[in-house]
């Protein structure tokens, strides 16, 4: 489109891309501003027109005048609502796009700020164009449409382990911290109102406390938006973010409590007591609802093996139902959503197809992205709209008190918490936690929900809330990044999770559990271990389909890594002839769960023919195994969907390409035999990557249907007959990380060397002795042929035995 042409257009008006981006933005804003008044203007028109028509028709059929048939007519009314919604969404997207075209700006200012500014602009334009601004941020829209996607995204991809490990701390901050904030701010504001000097402000204690409870909650949307860009270490991220999620329960209870009581006018001790009980019910009830729906979703996903297409829908619909059900009972919808997502995830991921998984991931990220953008824009628009009542004292007092109470709260709580924590929170950590307590749209919406008749000071509240939100988002949001740099806070570890970590983490878990048992102490690890056992024994078997319920986590992780690597290989070597000429064959028996009794014996060298029954077996194996590997998403960062191979280092890819070329050269040099390894690594995944475009996941190449084939033909690069001991030639692309880059065995006595470029060649001298000459020769020739083959197409003559 236009931005892309710009660089080539030397003499054009907009010479550079950023300029063009800004121009585009301006155009869109104007468009937005102009369409809406147009909509409003046309409404009365169509109405009167309609009336005229009706009255005309009523007068009698005989009276209707003959008008020219309307070739082109304009009817805005019927498409008004969807049209406006789409226009807003489009605006949101184009804004986001525009920001990324101007990279300098997005480096300094967090996106949320820019979006609010855009909202202000749009709101301003609309106000100029016509009298009133549409009430875009009405609470219903916010709570039922805009908020759930963000929370679901957060809950589904919540990193469970750090969350659980720090749960105590998070709960302390969320519950006690929020309570403290609410009472501190509310109480002191009331005290300020009592001071006779303050200009006309008679707000009662309860409304003040209500205000305090609205303003005290840390907002997950704002936190997400800002923290995503600063990449701090996982601990701090999960603490602040977890707090923002869990304080919803407290907010809900306090809000309803004070709202009720503010109307009544007084509170008794009993009410306080009921409030506490209510809190427990709200929180635990929300979690319970979420868990129930999560299990239902997991259970449903067990049966979807035949209708893969609608699998993502289950995830979304069940989660949304959980949210709505919780809201119905005035329970905490956010907690329900989090619980639902977190509970269903391990089971659903084990059951659904890879494509569904990708769909879910992308849809969630997309929706939450749109929602977040829209929320900030609407915040800007709503600011312009008002209604406002500015009161210097109240507003400044609010802002100052919020900051102060946050700092005091965090410091005080940390002092207590550190007594129980193993990894203590340092002063730096405390500062970041305090500084990261951003308020956002939830506070505004809650304020908006207040009934105007009962709360005459609603406007003052709204103004104050907006000021606090603006302050936190702009000032704190913009300065947190340089502060993080300045204080040298630990950043997120960019290191990829390695298999070693997985192994050692599990090992440590077992070790600590064992030590706890020896000490006779039933601690944290003991219960975690018990839960895992229970999960493995009963729950997994119930909720996960078929054999996957027995797959240990380590294996799944390993497969995922191999697949990622394989995809990377395939994509990086995409255009090169070499890559496509190196199919890898599959030795299916290595992927199956351990059904056969004996491990693979290297001795057996028989090359059986492919029988019909075997073919069916192979097809079945293909089908089951193609669903195995999954890509787990570790990132909860919306801006970078980590895991795409293209995004990883280019240097690596170049290096690998070089090594592959090296490999090719070396293979050509080698005139000797090949033996078969006893193991396989990423061949199924490589093949999967290649077959990714298949309609069904079964890919049966043409030659497979033919009667007798030479089963060890390397060009039939799907499955080999999975007899035991079938020699499988496996050519793995060379890489320093692949365990078995090339399984080429040299029998003429050249020892296996580690090539300086990372080729791994291993000798298996014991195996090589037992091979027959004939086989060796054939295999070797096959390999040569396979390497020189230009493409993976199944050819007619390929299954002729290439024997002289």
């Amino acid at each position: 489109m236009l931005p892309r042409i710009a660089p080539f257009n030397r003499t054009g008006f907009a010479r550079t891309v950023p300029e063009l981006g800004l121009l585009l933005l301006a155009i869109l804003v104007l468009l937005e501003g102009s369409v809406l008044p147009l909509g409003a203007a046309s409404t009365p028109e169509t109405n009167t027109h309609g009336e005229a028509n009706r009255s005309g028709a009523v007068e009698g059929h005989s009276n209707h005048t003959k008008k020219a048939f309307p070739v082109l007519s304009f009817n805005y009314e019927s498409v008004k609502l969807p049209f406006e919604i789409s226009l807003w969404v489009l605006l949101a997207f184009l804004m986001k796009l525009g920001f990324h075209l101007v990279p300098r700006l997005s480096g300094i200012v967090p996106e949320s700020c820019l979006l609010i500014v855009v909202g202000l602009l749009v709101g301003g334009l609309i106000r100029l164009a016509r009298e009133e601004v549409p009430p875009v941020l009405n609470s219903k829209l916010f709570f039922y449409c805009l908020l759930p996607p963000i929370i679901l995204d957060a809950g589904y991809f919540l990193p469970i382990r750090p969350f659980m490990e720090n749960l105590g701390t998070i709960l302390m901050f969320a519950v006690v911290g929020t309570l403290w904030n609410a009472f501190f701010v509310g109480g002191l504001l009331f005290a300020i109102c009592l001071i006779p000097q303050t200009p006309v402000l008679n707000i009662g204690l309860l409304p003040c406390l209500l205000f305090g409870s609205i303003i005290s909650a840390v907002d997950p949307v704002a936190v997400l938006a800002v923290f995503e860009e600063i990449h701090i270490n996982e601990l701090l991220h999960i603490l602040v973010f977890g707090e923002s999620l869990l304080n919803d329960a407290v907010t809900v209870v306090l809000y309803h409590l004070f709202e009720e009581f503010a109307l009544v006018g007084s509170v008794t001790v009993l009410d306080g007591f009921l409030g506490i009980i209510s809190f427990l019910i709200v929180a635990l009830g929300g979690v319970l609802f979420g868990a129930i729906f999560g299990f239902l979703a997991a259970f449903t996903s067990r049966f979807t093996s035949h209708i893969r297409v609608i699998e993502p829908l289950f995830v979304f619909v069940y989660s949304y139902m959980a949210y709505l059900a919780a809201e119905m009972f005035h329970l905490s919808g956010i907690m329900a959503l989090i619980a639902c997502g977190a509970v269903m995830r391990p089971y659903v991921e084990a059951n659904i197809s890879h494509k569904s998984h990708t769909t879910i991931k992308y849809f969630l990220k997309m929706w939450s992205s749109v929602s977040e953008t829209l929320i900030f824009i609407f915040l800007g628009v709503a600011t312009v709209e008002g209604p406002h009542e500015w009161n210097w004292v109240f507003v400044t007092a609010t802002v100052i008190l919020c900051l102060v109470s946050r700092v005091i709260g965090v410091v005080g709580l940390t002092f207590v918490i550190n007594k129980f924590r193993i990894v203590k929170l340092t002063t730096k950590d405390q500062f970041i936690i305090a500084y990261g307590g951003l308020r956002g749209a939830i506070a505004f919406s809650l304020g908006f929900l207040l009934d105007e008749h009962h709360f005459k000071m609603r406007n003052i509240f709204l103004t104050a809330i907006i000021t606090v939100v603006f302050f936190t988002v702009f000032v704190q949001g913009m300065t947190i990044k340089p502060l993080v740099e300045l204080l040298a806070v630990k950043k997120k570890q960019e290191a990829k999770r390695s298999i070693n970590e997985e192994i050692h983490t599990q090992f440590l878990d077992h070790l600590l559990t064992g030590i706890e048992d020896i000490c006779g102490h039933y601690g944290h690890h003991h219960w975690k271990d018990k839960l895992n056992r229970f999960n493995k024994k009963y729950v997994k078997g119930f909720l996960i389909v078929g054999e996957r319920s027995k797959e240990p986590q380590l294996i799944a992780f390993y497969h995922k890594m191999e697949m990622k690597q394989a995809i990377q290989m395939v994509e990086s070597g995409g255009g090169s002839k070499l890559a496509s000429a190196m199919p890898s064959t599959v030795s299916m028996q290595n992927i199956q769960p351990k059904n056969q009794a004996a491990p693979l014996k290297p001795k057996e060298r028989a090359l059986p023919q492919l029988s019909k029954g075997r073919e069916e077996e192979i097809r079945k194996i293909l089908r089951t195994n193609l669903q195995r590997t999954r890509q787990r998403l570790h990132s909860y960062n919306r801006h970078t969907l980590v895991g795409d191979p293209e995004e990883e280092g280019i240097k690596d890819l170049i290096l690998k390409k070089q090594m592959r070329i090296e490999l090719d050269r070396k293979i050509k040099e080698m005139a000797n035999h090949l033996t078969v390894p006893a193991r396989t690594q990423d061949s199924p995944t490589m093949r999967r990557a290649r077959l990714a475009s298949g309609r069904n996941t079964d890919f049966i190449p043409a030659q497979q249907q033919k009667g007798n084939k030479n089963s060890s033909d390397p060009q039939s690069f799907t499955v080999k007959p999975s007899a035991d001991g079938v020699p499988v030639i496996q050519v793995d692309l060379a890489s320093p990380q692949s365990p078995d880059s090339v399984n080429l065995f040299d029998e003429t006595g050249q020892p296996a060397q580690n090539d300086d470029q990372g080729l791994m060649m291993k000798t298996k001298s014991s195996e090589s002795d037992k091979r027959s000459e004939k086989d060796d020769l054939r295999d070797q020739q096959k390999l040569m042929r396979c390497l020189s083959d230009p493409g993976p197409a199944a050819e007619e003559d390929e299954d002729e035995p290439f024997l002289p």
Partner: protein
Amino acid sequence: MFLISVSAAHLLRLYERFQFLDKDNRGHLRPEDFEAVLELSENPIGDRIVEAFFKPGQETVDFPSFVRVLAHFRPTEKNRNRDKGQPDPANSRTRKLKFAFRLYDRDRDGKISRAELLQVLREMLGMQVTEEQLQSIAERAIQEADLDKDGAISFDEFRKVGPLELGSAFILLTVRHLNDEVSSLSYWRSG
């Protein structure tokens, strides 16, 4: 070995546990006594843990040794005075890492060979995977960690694996209540 300060109350609970395990009141424990701990039999690396209590070649473990091993699991003190004269206390990070390393490296040759790693994986993953898968994983793990390409993981490589992650995991290599009981034992010298 000598201790600098001991509070009887702290040690009491551990001693009670020791006595509970020592059914015949012999004053020392043998490997069979650990079987009284039922959950250990379910633990994949249960026998390794038990083995760690016994010094190589010894059949029994007395109470001081019992405590010494458990002292590894106290929380690390962050601002320890690093006196040159004193050896690291049992709960320092290095010692913890060393302890865990020894659990992998059963033959105590200072390296985790492929076979040893394979053994660990076999124990942890049990009968659910094929031999080939285990070998692949072991191979890959060694590849990732092995910097000097000798086919085994030495202690230094072990430390470097998964840079800070593993280190901080070892900070977490603690059992909370041991802090109370063994807090005064930080001056035990480990053998």
